[in-house]
């Protein structure tokens, strides 16, 4: 049996017109590890997160491959059993806390709901747990926050609330989908620090979706670089920045702005690199045979 917390093997997904949006993606997240999925828009990084959580849009169909959550093959479970397993062992930290929260309900019941309704906890136990987590995300006035409506909190506070909610049920795996993209840079740093601290203390594995190589360098131990639904490079994060192997990874690093080295950064991606990628994708498509004809 696999020791990985999440093991994705050879996962392909297509749109109704047959176009592949995930191209034989394989990646694993070990227990307690942060794996970053990095890529530009359209790379499929959010799609992978959604596939794991079982919330792919209805226009996307998985046509091959396996997803194992702590050794259990999600594809072999009945829908209800699959939802229960995903609900108990995973959680999401979304990009935009304002759309993830119900605007017409107070924070408190929204946070305890999941624990009570999905995990069957008592209201009292859920409330105590939520307060404990709010303390862990350094919210010093939990009573006020729990009584508030989402619009009464700042962006950073809302994201703290969602981080607390994600960790509350002790999931084994958290999918964090661009959790700091909408935040100011100083708030982003506080939030990344909190996620890293809770992740360490709770031993939670995280699949961290981001477009920002700076965030990748700071938060993750492992990284998969995606382009057009294909993993073009996978490495230890330290190794990736020390010696990126794929030309696209090198180009992405060179394109990322660095105030310490303004002239060597912000380099436009070379046309030759993009042409090479297109050829690589085309070759992969040629070699690929959709299962079931």
């Amino acid at each position, binding site marked *: 049996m696999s020791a990985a917390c999440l093991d994705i093997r050879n996962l392909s997904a297509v749109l109704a017109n047959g176009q592949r949006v995930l191209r034989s993606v394989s990646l694993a997240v070990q227990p307690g590890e942060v794996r970053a999925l990095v890529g530009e*828009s359209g790379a499929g990084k959010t799609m992978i997160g959604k596939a794991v959580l079982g919330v792919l849009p209805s226009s996307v169909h998985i046509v091959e491959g396996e997803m194992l959550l702590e050794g259990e093959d999600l594809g072999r479970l009945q829908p209800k059993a699959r939802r229960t397993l995903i609900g108990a062992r995973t959680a999401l930290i979304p990009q935009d806390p304002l759309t993830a929260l119900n605007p017409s309900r107070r924070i408190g019941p929204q946070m305890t709901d999941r624990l009570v309704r999905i995990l069957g906890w008592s209201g009292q136990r859920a409330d105590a747990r939520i307060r404990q987590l709010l303390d862990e995300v350094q919210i010093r006035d939990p009573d006020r926050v729990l009584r508030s409506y989402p619009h009464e909190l700042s962006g950073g506070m809302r994201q703290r609330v969602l981080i607390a909610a994600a960790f509350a049920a002790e999931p084994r795996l958290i999918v964090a989908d661009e959790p700091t993209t909408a935040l100011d840079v*100083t708030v*982003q740093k506080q939030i*990344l620090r909190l996620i890293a601290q809770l992740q360490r203390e709770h031993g939670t594995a995280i699949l961290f979706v981001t477009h920002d190589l700076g965030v990748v360098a700071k938060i993750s131990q492992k990284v998969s670089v995606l382009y057009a639904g294909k993993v073009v490079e996978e490495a230890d994060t330290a190794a990736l920045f*020390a010696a990126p192997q794929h030309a696209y990874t090198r180009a992405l690093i060179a*394109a990322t702005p660095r105030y310490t080295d303004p002239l060597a950064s*912000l380099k*436009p991606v070379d046309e030759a690199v993009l042409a090479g990628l297109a050829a690589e994708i085309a070759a992969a498509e040629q070699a690929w045979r959709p299962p079931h004809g």
Partner: protein
Amino acid sequence: MAKPLISVRGLKVALPDMTRKPLIGRAPLAEILKGLDFDLPRGSVTGIVGESGSGKSTLGRALVRLLEPSAGSITFDGCDITHLPEAELRPLRRNLQMIFQDPMSSLNPRRTIASIIAAPLKQNGLGDRLKERVAEALQRVGLPQSFASRYRHELSGGQRQRVGIARALALSPRFVLADEIVSGLDVSTQAQILTLLEKLAAEMGLTVAFISHDLSVIRRLCQQVIVMREGRIVEASATNALFENPQQAYTRDLIAAIPLPEIDADWLQPAARSTA
């Protein structure tokens, strides 16, 4: 040294605070900009940086007189434009152009790219040789001529932003306001757009106010930087000086919070110094 193109003295802007608007009657005014003094030197790119709510976009809108200041003055090339009525602003408008953050919402979906770029030319009495001028504008931003007949939805994000730049520069303005023009773009596209803007600003001798939340981008592009917080200027200086020797704790915090694409195990450790 030549006189600055734009001089701002004691600038205040107050806007209606809709969150405190009574059911009946006017919303009370909230002061967004609380007295700013600075100059924009001719032919240089000035970065305006700050977090959300710092007033950087409001400042931008006041500079191109989309907003009327409530106090202080804005002088454009020796002419006081602070309270100039719209009719008198019109002849100046061709020299006060703007590139927007989101080209998807600032380009008309029903018009072709050619007609979008032509609109300001016609408005400003440059309706002759229209085709030629549009072709020139497209070429300037590195778009093929075939794009003239396309619509915005047929373009990628980077191409759309090139159209936004082409439209703003079609009139060869003296001043261009660029408000977060790369924040919606992927890094590879962002690099292309910034390189383009850098080149055009130098070639055309533009004076640019470049609003951004990203100090790394500002360091690359701008000759001087204004750091804003809560409607005030925290620090303003030449770019290199600001990065090498930031004077204010807030500026140092802003710089330290940028996650560089480099391994740094200490970066996530709680800082000894608290945020100012």
